[in-house]
Protein backbone atom coordinates (compact mmCIF):
# COMPACT_ATOMS: atom_id res chain seq x y z
CA UNK A 1 0.00 0.00 0.00
CA UNK A 2 1.32 3.42 -0.92
CA UNK A 3 2.75 5.54 1.86
CA UNK A 4 0.38 8.46 1.19
CA UNK A 5 -2.60 6.10 1.37
CA UNK A 6 -1.50 4.71 4.74
CA UNK A 7 -0.94 8.25 5.97
CA UNK A 8 -4.41 9.33 4.75
CA UNK A 9 -6.10 6.43 6.56
CA UNK A 10 -4.23 7.18 9.81
CA UNK A 11 -5.11 10.88 9.57
CA UNK A 12 -8.75 10.04 8.77
CA UNK A 13 -9.09 7.74 11.77
CA UNK A 14 -7.39 10.32 14.02
CA UNK A 15 -9.78 13.04 12.81
CA UNK A 16 -12.75 10.74 13.48
CA UNK A 17 -11.53 10.03 17.01
CA UNK A 18 -11.11 13.76 17.71
CA UNK A 19 -14.61 14.54 16.40
CA UNK A 20 -16.12 11.75 18.52
CA UNK A 21 -14.22 12.90 21.61
CA UNK A 22 -15.44 16.47 21.18
CA UNK A 23 -19.00 15.26 20.57
CA UNK A 24 -19.07 13.08 23.68
CA UNK A 25 -17.86 16.01 25.78
CA UNK A 26 -20.90 18.08 24.81
CA UNK A 27 -23.84 18.36 27.18
CA UNK A 28 -26.81 16.79 25.34
CA UNK A 29 -29.16 19.07 27.29
CA UNK A 30 -27.43 22.20 26.04
CA UNK A 31 -27.82 22.23 22.27
CA UNK A 32 -26.72 25.64 21.00
CA UNK A 33 -28.42 25.58 17.66
CA UNK A 34 -31.06 27.74 16.09
CA UNK A 35 -32.38 30.36 18.43
CA UNK A 36 -29.72 30.66 21.14
CA UNK A 37 -27.91 34.02 21.11
CA UNK A 38 -30.65 35.48 18.94
CA UNK A 39 -33.51 37.80 19.89
CA UNK A 40 -36.36 35.90 21.51
CA UNK A 41 -39.37 35.58 19.22
CA UNK A 42 -42.17 37.90 20.28
CA UNK A 43 -45.52 36.29 21.01
CA UNK A 44 -48.93 37.03 22.40
CA UNK A 45 -50.93 34.07 23.62
CA UNK A 46 -54.05 33.22 25.59
CA UNK A 47 -53.50 32.70 29.28
CA UNK A 48 -54.27 29.17 30.43
CA UNK A 49 -56.57 30.43 33.19
CA UNK A 50 -58.68 32.28 30.63
CA UNK A 51 -57.94 35.76 32.00
CA UNK A 52 -56.93 37.31 28.69
CA UNK A 53 -53.64 37.31 26.84
CA UNK A 54 -49.97 37.59 27.72
CA UNK A 55 -47.25 39.15 25.56
CA UNK A 56 -43.55 38.57 25.97
CA UNK A 57 -43.06 42.28 25.36
CA UNK A 58 -44.85 42.94 28.67
CA UNK A 59 -41.69 41.69 30.38
CA UNK A 60 -39.09 43.65 28.43
CA UNK A 61 -36.03 44.43 30.52
CA UNK A 62 -36.53 41.47 32.85
CA UNK A 63 -34.94 38.07 33.03
CA UNK A 64 -37.51 35.67 31.54
CA UNK A 65 -37.54 31.93 32.05
CA UNK A 66 -39.70 30.26 29.40
CA UNK A 67 -40.69 26.72 30.27
CA UNK A 68 -42.45 24.47 27.74
CA UNK A 69 -44.36 21.70 29.49
CA UNK A 70 -47.27 19.29 29.16
CA UNK A 71 -49.37 17.32 31.62
CA UNK A 72 -48.58 14.07 29.77
CA UNK A 73 -44.82 14.57 30.12
CA UNK A 74 -43.19 12.71 33.07
CA UNK A 75 -39.92 14.73 33.00
CA UNK A 76 -42.04 17.89 33.31
CA UNK A 77 -43.48 16.56 36.54
CA UNK A 78 -39.99 15.57 37.64
CA UNK A 79 -38.56 19.08 37.18
CA UNK A 80 -41.60 20.92 38.52
CA UNK A 81 -40.57 21.01 42.22
CA UNK A 82 -37.31 22.74 41.23
CA UNK A 83 -39.21 25.27 39.16
CA UNK A 84 -41.58 25.97 42.05
CA UNK A 85 -38.72 26.47 44.52
CA UNK A 86 -36.78 28.78 42.23
CA UNK A 87 -39.93 30.72 41.32
CA UNK A 88 -40.64 31.30 45.00
CA UNK A 89 -37.07 32.51 45.45
CA UNK A 90 -37.17 35.07 42.62
CA UNK A 91 -40.85 35.97 42.16
CA UNK A 92 -40.49 39.34 43.91
CA UNK A 93 -37.42 40.28 41.86
CA UNK A 94 -36.83 41.16 38.21
CA UNK A 95 -37.24 37.53 37.16
CA UNK A 96 -40.34 36.23 35.42
CA UNK A 97 -41.35 32.66 34.73
CA UNK A 98 -43.70 31.94 31.83
CA UNK A 99 -45.09 28.46 31.30
CA UNK A 100 -46.08 27.45 27.77
CA UNK A 101 -48.37 24.47 27.32
CA UNK A 102 -47.02 22.15 24.64
CA UNK A 103 -49.46 19.93 22.71
CA UNK A 104 -51.89 19.41 25.54
CA UNK A 105 -55.61 19.68 26.20
CA UNK A 106 -56.53 22.87 28.04
CA UNK A 107 -58.47 21.11 30.82
CA UNK A 108 -55.62 18.66 31.46
CA UNK A 109 -53.07 21.48 31.51
CA UNK A 110 -55.22 23.43 33.95
CA UNK A 111 -55.52 20.39 36.22
CA UNK A 112 -51.73 19.94 36.04
CA UNK A 113 -50.85 23.52 37.05
CA UNK A 114 -53.43 23.40 39.83
CA UNK A 115 -52.16 20.11 41.23
CA UNK A 116 -48.44 20.97 40.96
CA UNK A 117 -48.33 24.46 42.41
CA UNK A 118 -47.61 26.28 39.17
CA UNK A 119 -48.43 29.87 40.10
CA UNK A 120 -46.42 31.69 37.44
CA UNK A 121 -48.17 32.96 34.30
CA UNK A 122 -48.95 30.17 31.87
CA UNK A 123 -50.16 30.39 28.28
CA UNK A 124 -51.55 28.07 25.64
CA UNK A 125 -49.80 27.34 22.35
CA UNK A 126 -52.54 25.38 20.61
CA UNK A 127 -51.13 25.74 17.09
CA UNK A 128 -47.52 25.20 18.18
CA UNK A 129 -46.35 28.52 16.71
CA UNK A 130 -44.46 29.62 19.83
CA UNK A 131 -42.72 26.23 20.07
CA UNK A 132 -41.67 26.40 16.40
CA UNK A 133 -40.42 29.97 16.78
CA UNK A 134 -38.16 28.87 19.64
CA UNK A 135 -37.09 25.59 18.03
CA UNK A 136 -38.61 23.30 20.63
CA UNK A 137 -38.14 19.55 20.07
CA UNK A 138 -40.43 18.45 22.88
CA UNK A 139 -41.21 19.15 26.53
CA UNK A 140 -39.71 19.95 28.87
CA UNK A 141 -37.53 22.68 27.44
CA UNK A 142 -36.46 25.83 29.25
CA UNK A 143 -35.20 29.04 27.67
CA UNK A 144 -33.39 31.86 29.47
CA UNK A 145 -34.01 35.31 28.02
CA UNK A 146 -31.88 38.19 29.19
CA UNK A 147 -33.06 41.74 29.89
CA UNK A 148 -31.78 42.61 26.40
CA UNK A 149 -34.38 40.25 24.91
CA UNK A 150 -31.78 37.78 23.63
CA UNK A 151 -32.01 34.06 24.34
CA UNK A 152 -28.94 33.37 26.44
CA UNK A 153 -29.43 29.63 26.80
CA UNK A 154 -31.75 26.69 26.58
CA UNK A 155 -32.07 23.45 28.46
CA UNK A 156 -33.52 20.37 26.83
CA UNK A 157 -35.06 17.88 29.24
CA UNK A 158 -35.78 18.14 32.95
CA UNK A 159 -33.95 21.02 34.57
CA UNK A 160 -32.63 21.04 38.15
CA UNK A 161 -32.54 23.80 40.75
CA UNK A 162 -28.81 24.43 40.48
CA UNK A 163 -28.95 24.98 36.70
CA UNK A 164 -31.96 27.27 37.05
CA UNK A 165 -30.34 29.40 39.74
CA UNK A 166 -26.97 29.55 37.96
CA UNK A 167 -28.56 30.58 34.65
CA UNK A 168 -30.78 33.21 36.27
CA UNK A 169 -28.00 34.67 38.42
CA UNK A 170 -25.68 34.90 35.44
CA UNK A 171 -28.24 36.94 33.51
CA UNK A 172 -29.04 39.13 36.50
CA UNK A 173 -25.33 39.80 37.01
CA UNK A 174 -24.97 40.80 33.35
CA UNK A 175 -27.95 43.12 33.68
CA UNK A 176 -26.58 44.87 36.76
CA UNK A 177 -23.21 45.64 35.11
Amino acid at each position, binding site marked *: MARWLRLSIVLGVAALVVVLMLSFRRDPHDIRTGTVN*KPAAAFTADRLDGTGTLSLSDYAGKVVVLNFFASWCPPCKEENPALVRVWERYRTSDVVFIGIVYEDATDKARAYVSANGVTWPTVRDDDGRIA*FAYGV*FGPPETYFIGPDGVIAGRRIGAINEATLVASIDKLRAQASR
Partner: protein
Amino acid sequence: MTRERALILVALLAIVGAVAWSAWPREVTAAERVDRITSELRCVTCQGLSVKDSPAASARQMRDLVVQRVAEGRTDDEIRGEFRASYGDWVLLSPPASSWTGLIWLVPIVALVAGLAVVLGRVRAVVPRAADPSPRELAALRERVAREEALDLPQADGAG
Protein backbone atom coordinates in the same frame (compact mmCIF):
# COMPACT_ATOMS: atom_id res chain seq x y z
CA MET B 1 -32.05 0.99 -44.30
CA THR B 2 -33.82 4.28 -44.95
CA ARG B 3 -36.88 3.01 -43.12
CA GLU B 4 -34.78 2.01 -40.12
CA ARG B 5 -33.22 5.44 -40.01
CA ALA B 6 -36.64 7.03 -40.15
CA LEU B 7 -37.79 4.88 -37.22
CA ILE B 8 -34.71 5.82 -35.19
CA LEU B 9 -35.34 9.50 -35.98
CA VAL B 10 -38.97 9.21 -34.87
CA ALA B 11 -37.92 7.47 -31.64
CA LEU B 12 -35.32 10.15 -30.91
CA LEU B 13 -37.85 12.90 -31.57
CA ALA B 14 -40.33 11.16 -29.25
CA ILE B 15 -37.71 10.98 -26.46
CA VAL B 16 -36.68 14.63 -26.89
CA GLY B 17 -40.35 15.65 -26.98
CA ALA B 18 -41.14 13.71 -23.79
CA VAL B 19 -38.16 15.20 -21.94
CA ALA B 20 -39.03 18.71 -23.11
CA TRP B 21 -42.67 18.25 -22.12
CA SER B 22 -41.78 17.01 -18.65
CA ALA B 23 -39.27 19.83 -18.12
CA TRP B 24 -41.57 22.54 -19.47
CA PRO B 25 -42.38 25.01 -16.66
CA ARG B 26 -45.97 24.84 -15.55
CA GLU B 27 -48.10 26.37 -12.87
CA VAL B 28 -47.55 24.63 -9.53
CA THR B 29 -50.61 24.55 -7.31
CA ALA B 30 -50.50 25.62 -3.66
CA ALA B 31 -51.19 22.03 -2.57
CA GLU B 32 -48.24 20.78 -4.64
CA ARG B 33 -46.00 23.40 -3.05
CA VAL B 34 -47.15 22.41 0.43
CA ASP B 35 -46.47 18.74 -0.39
CA ARG B 36 -43.02 19.55 -1.74
CA ILE B 37 -41.99 21.73 1.21
CA THR B 38 -43.37 19.38 3.87
CA SER B 39 -41.63 16.42 2.23
CA GLU B 40 -38.32 18.29 2.66
CA LEU B 41 -38.89 19.25 6.30
CA ARG B 42 -38.09 16.90 9.17
CA CYS B 43 -40.78 16.21 11.78
CA VAL B 44 -39.18 17.59 14.96
CA THR B 45 -40.65 14.98 17.29
CA CYS B 46 -40.15 11.92 15.06
CA GLN B 47 -37.22 9.75 14.03
CA GLY B 48 -36.30 10.39 10.41
CA LEU B 49 -39.80 11.14 9.13
CA SER B 50 -40.77 14.08 7.00
CA VAL B 51 -43.52 16.44 8.06
CA LYS B 52 -45.55 15.16 5.13
CA ASP B 53 -45.26 11.51 6.16
CA SER B 54 -45.56 11.89 9.93
CA PRO B 55 -48.89 11.48 11.74
CA ALA B 56 -47.56 13.34 14.83
CA ALA B 57 -49.43 16.36 16.14
CA SER B 58 -46.35 18.60 15.81
CA ALA B 59 -45.98 17.55 12.16
CA ARG B 60 -49.63 18.48 11.56
CA GLN B 61 -48.99 21.87 13.15
CA MET B 62 -45.90 22.38 11.00
CA ARG B 63 -47.92 21.49 7.92
CA ASP B 64 -50.62 23.98 8.95
CA LEU B 65 -47.95 26.66 9.27
CA VAL B 66 -46.61 25.84 5.79
CA VAL B 67 -50.15 26.01 4.36
CA GLN B 68 -50.60 29.42 5.95
CA ARG B 69 -47.25 30.74 4.70
CA VAL B 70 -47.95 29.53 1.14
CA ALA B 71 -51.35 31.26 1.26
CA GLU B 72 -49.61 34.44 2.44
CA GLY B 73 -47.47 34.35 -0.70
CA ARG B 74 -44.15 33.44 0.92
CA THR B 75 -41.58 31.75 -1.30
CA ASP B 76 -40.38 28.19 -0.66
CA ASP B 77 -37.00 29.51 0.51
CA GLU B 78 -38.64 31.91 2.94
CA ILE B 79 -40.75 29.12 4.43
CA ARG B 80 -37.80 26.75 4.75
CA GLY B 81 -35.78 29.65 6.14
CA GLU B 82 -38.30 30.21 8.92
CA PHE B 83 -37.85 26.65 10.17
CA ARG B 84 -34.08 26.77 9.64
CA ALA B 85 -33.91 29.88 11.80
CA SER B 86 -35.38 27.92 14.70
CA TYR B 87 -33.99 24.42 14.19
CA GLY B 88 -30.93 24.95 11.97
CA ASP B 89 -30.14 22.84 8.92
CA TRP B 90 -31.15 19.77 10.92
CA VAL B 91 -34.79 20.46 10.09
CA LEU B 92 -34.09 19.87 6.39
CA LEU B 93 -34.02 16.20 5.43
CA SER B 94 -31.45 16.99 2.71
CA PRO B 95 -28.77 19.34 4.05
CA PRO B 96 -28.16 22.30 1.74
CA ALA B 97 -24.95 22.09 -0.27
CA SER B 98 -24.20 25.73 0.45
CA SER B 99 -23.75 25.35 4.21
CA TRP B 100 -21.20 23.59 6.43
CA THR B 101 -23.38 20.49 6.57
CA GLY B 102 -23.27 20.43 2.77
CA LEU B 103 -19.82 18.85 3.15
CA ILE B 104 -21.73 15.62 3.68
CA TRP B 105 -22.38 15.55 -0.06
CA LEU B 106 -18.62 15.35 -0.60
CA VAL B 107 -18.26 12.18 1.47
CA PRO B 108 -19.49 9.75 -1.26
CA ILE B 109 -17.27 11.45 -3.85
CA VAL B 110 -14.24 11.32 -1.55
CA ALA B 111 -15.03 7.67 -0.74
CA LEU B 112 -15.34 6.86 -4.44
CA VAL B 113 -12.05 8.54 -5.30
CA ALA B 114 -10.32 6.82 -2.36
CA GLY B 115 -11.78 3.46 -3.42
CA LEU B 116 -10.60 3.96 -7.00
CA ALA B 117 -7.14 4.91 -5.73
CA VAL B 118 -6.99 1.72 -3.65
CA VAL B 119 -8.19 -0.44 -6.59
CA LEU B 120 -5.72 1.15 -8.98
CA GLY B 121 -2.94 0.68 -6.46
CA ARG B 122 -3.81 -3.00 -6.10
CA VAL B 123 -4.11 -3.55 -9.86
CA ARG B 124 -0.73 -1.96 -10.44
CA ALA B 125 0.79 -4.14 -7.78
CA VAL B 126 -0.74 -7.36 -9.19
CA VAL B 127 -0.06 -6.90 -12.93
CA PRO B 128 3.63 -7.69 -13.47
CA ARG B 129 5.54 -5.26 -15.57
CA ALA B 130 7.27 -6.76 -18.59
CA ALA B 131 10.88 -7.08 -17.71
CA ASP B 132 13.44 -5.48 -20.01
CA PRO B 133 15.38 -8.10 -21.99
CA SER B 134 18.84 -8.83 -20.81
CA PRO B 135 21.77 -7.86 -23.11
CA ARG B 136 22.17 -11.51 -23.96
CA GLU B 137 18.50 -11.90 -24.98
CA LEU B 138 18.69 -8.65 -26.92
CA ALA B 139 21.69 -9.85 -28.83
CA ALA B 140 19.94 -13.14 -29.65
CA LEU B 141 16.87 -11.29 -30.93
CA ARG B 142 18.95 -8.97 -33.07
CA GLU B 143 20.79 -11.93 -34.51
CA ARG B 144 17.48 -13.67 -35.35
CA VAL B 145 16.08 -10.57 -37.07
CA ALA B 146 19.22 -10.19 -39.09
CA ARG B 147 19.06 -13.85 -40.11
CA GLU B 148 15.46 -13.56 -41.23
CA GLU B 149 16.16 -10.38 -43.15
CA ALA B 150 19.01 -12.14 -44.91
CA LEU B 151 16.70 -14.96 -45.94
CA ASP B 152 14.28 -12.32 -47.33
CA LEU B 153 11.24 -14.26 -46.28
CA PRO B 154 7.89 -13.19 -47.82
CA GLN B 155 5.59 -10.92 -45.66
CA ALA B 156 2.86 -12.75 -43.76
CA ASP B 157 0.08 -10.68 -45.40
CA GLY B 158 1.52 -11.27 -48.86
CA ALA B 159 2.20 -7.59 -49.48
CA GLY B 160 5.91 -8.17 -50.31
